[in-house]
């Protein structure tokens, strides 16, 4: 049986889509039996996708320069990219900051919050720098398939992966296609 290597990454999102992924429950076992192999995912705690990964799943919008690198690496190493959840697909909740200049956002977050005393904006090079605008994944790389939803249901994720493993093109509709 041919293995289908699946990697996933969690960018600017709440991890709800990965929760929904895990919410497939025993169907995860079924998919693994049918050939799905989880490689670099937050679930396996591996971060760098290997060369020749079949399916790359991206959760969350792209809000920092690090995330730009992450999704570009996924595009390079994965044959088929799925943007999963409203943030990855449309930009989602993180785009709320698009109407406010980055400096004001950071000030509000690290200095002006009511519970903060002597706050300062972190400057370590280890941390990603905020982009001027939060972007949907398809504004940075080419995306092959979209599963909108906040989060998408486990049924929708299961349906898409199952179709891909069996070599068909999934077509979301009805209860599986939801924007909220």
């Amino acid at each position: 049986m041919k293995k289908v290597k699946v990697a996933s990454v969690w960018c600017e999102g709440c991890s709800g889509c990965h929760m929904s992924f895990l919410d497939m429950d025993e169907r995860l076992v079924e998919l693994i039996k049918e050939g799905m192999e989880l490689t670099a995912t937050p679930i396996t705690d591996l971060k760098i996708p290997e060369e020749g990964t079949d399916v790359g799943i991206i959760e969350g919008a792209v809000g920092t320069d690090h995330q730009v690198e992450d999704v570009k690496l996924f595009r390079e190493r994965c044959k088929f990219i799925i943007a999963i959840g409203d943030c990855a697909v449309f930009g989602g909740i993180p785009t709320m900051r698009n109407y406010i200049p980055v400096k004001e956002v950071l000030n509000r977050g690290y200095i002006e919050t009511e519970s903060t005393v002597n706050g300062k904006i972190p400057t370590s090079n280890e941390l990603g720098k905020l982009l001027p605008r939060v972007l949907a994944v398809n504004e940075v790389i080419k995306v092959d398939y979209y599963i909108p939803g906040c989060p998408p249901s486990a049924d929708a994720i299961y349906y898409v992966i199952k179709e891909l493993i069996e070599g068909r093109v999934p077509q979301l509709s009805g209860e599986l296609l939801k924007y909220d």
Partner: protein
Amino acid sequence: MERIKIKFNGNEVEVDSGKTILDVANELGIHIPTLCNFEPLAPKGYCRMCVVEDRGALKASCVTPVAAGMEIQTDTPLVKEARYINLQLLFGERNHYCMYCESSGDCELQDLGYEFGLDHFDFPPYERKFLVDNSHKFLTIDHNRCILCRRCIRACSELAGHFVLGERDRGFNTMIIADVDVPLGESTCTSCGLCAQICPTGTIKDKRAAYLGKEVQSDIIPSTCDICPLGCGINVYRRSGSNFIIKVYGDWDSPINGGVLCKLGRYSVLYDERKRLLASKIRDDFGYRKIDFDGVLKIARSRIGDDAVAYVDGSLYNEELALIKKVFGNNVYSINPVEPPIPSSTDLSGLSKAEGYIVIGVDLNKDYGVVGSMIKRRVLGEEKAKLFVVDDGFNSLTSITENVFTFKDIEQAFDKAKGLKDVVVVFSALSDTIRDTLTKRGELKYLWLPFETNTIGLIKNGIKYEMKSGKNVFFFGKDHKKIRERFPEAFVICATPFEIEETEKIDLLIATKDGFEREGTFYNLEGKSLKRNKALESEYNVIDVIDLLSELSGKTKSEVI
């Protein structure tokens, strides 16, 4: 009408020449997606979702009349692609991110997204930030959600006749505005709420209803508004499995109002802050104490006899009036005047055909909003009907006409209206002098607006406006203010839904159901019998007047009506 032959999806069909392509498709049962088009409004072709292909050219089907030789295709790749890109542009222009929006689930744009399988945006959204106008008491306008379908503008003018909403600028900078671009709360808006009812997205929202529940979570109860004697058709949205009203919408199919409501019918009924009478009470030397249904019945029975009179007001339904007559015989009187100063000589269909209107002493925007809409849409719309207002005090209708007269100068109004063919005089109460002046004018048509909801029912039941005293005085209804004052010596029993001041010294207070808790029929101003359905269970320890009267008379309502 000429019959012409066209081809529709390859099949030859014969159709009437005046129809649009969309009309024909609907008749043939062929689905064409629409967004800005809405049945009672004139089609405008703003949104372009309904494009079809005719011999290679794309045409908006809602505004294109059929013509001989047309070959319409509704499902070609060209049509599908055009509609899809159009939908992408609609989603991309402003903020149509469903997660933020309370209309998600009740949104026609979202429905189209699902229908077309739209699973991402092709154009970067959220580039521009728009105003959220929260200045209005009942409505909020979030311009970020607007798709510029102008349904609200068209409803505000074509249907409601208020002409408050409009647009400014052009193309993608177009904004929906109120009056001359003032906040909605400071505009001339009469709070009829039709814009919120007709908005396909989450742009214009009813503040109260927005967070209470969606349409799929509601039981929709068709009913009739009983605020004024017009009897507008309404749909009451009650949260499924709960006992509260989400919102009241006008019934688009009602022959009376056609979807339009006024502030009173749509909002005042839900924002009612009058204190309810929570339980029946009896007064003795120490003040009031609570009393149960059996106690109420015992006292009421002991007080009914030849020396008892009953007073009613126009808030009672026909079934209740019939039972009251069973109990009290002919000793039933109205607490308020019932007889028209001049009987109506026309009806609502006559009103909607007239060339001129003389409105005497009544502020239609305030008290009879939908009658106001019927007149205003003809005065301010294409029909250019003439409006004459005769009033001494403040009347908001004076802002839309130059022809304003005082009661003293009423003759001048008649002189000015002379050339017009079809003139309807609209009034409610009239002074004797004005009435006499009017009756001399035989050429005019009269439309009397009755004082209370079921005033016509009182007339039909032969209940007169008279002051007859008795040892025991019963009162049924809401307008109880004058009752103690008029009968200082009598034992007064009041069956009413609202709290009465202790100082009124009513002897027995019977707490009754009110508003959406009641059901029954009443006669509207045209004399049509209209049914009002129950939409709420009462949460208080209150009595249905029908039950009380059935007990007292020994008859059920089906036996008397």
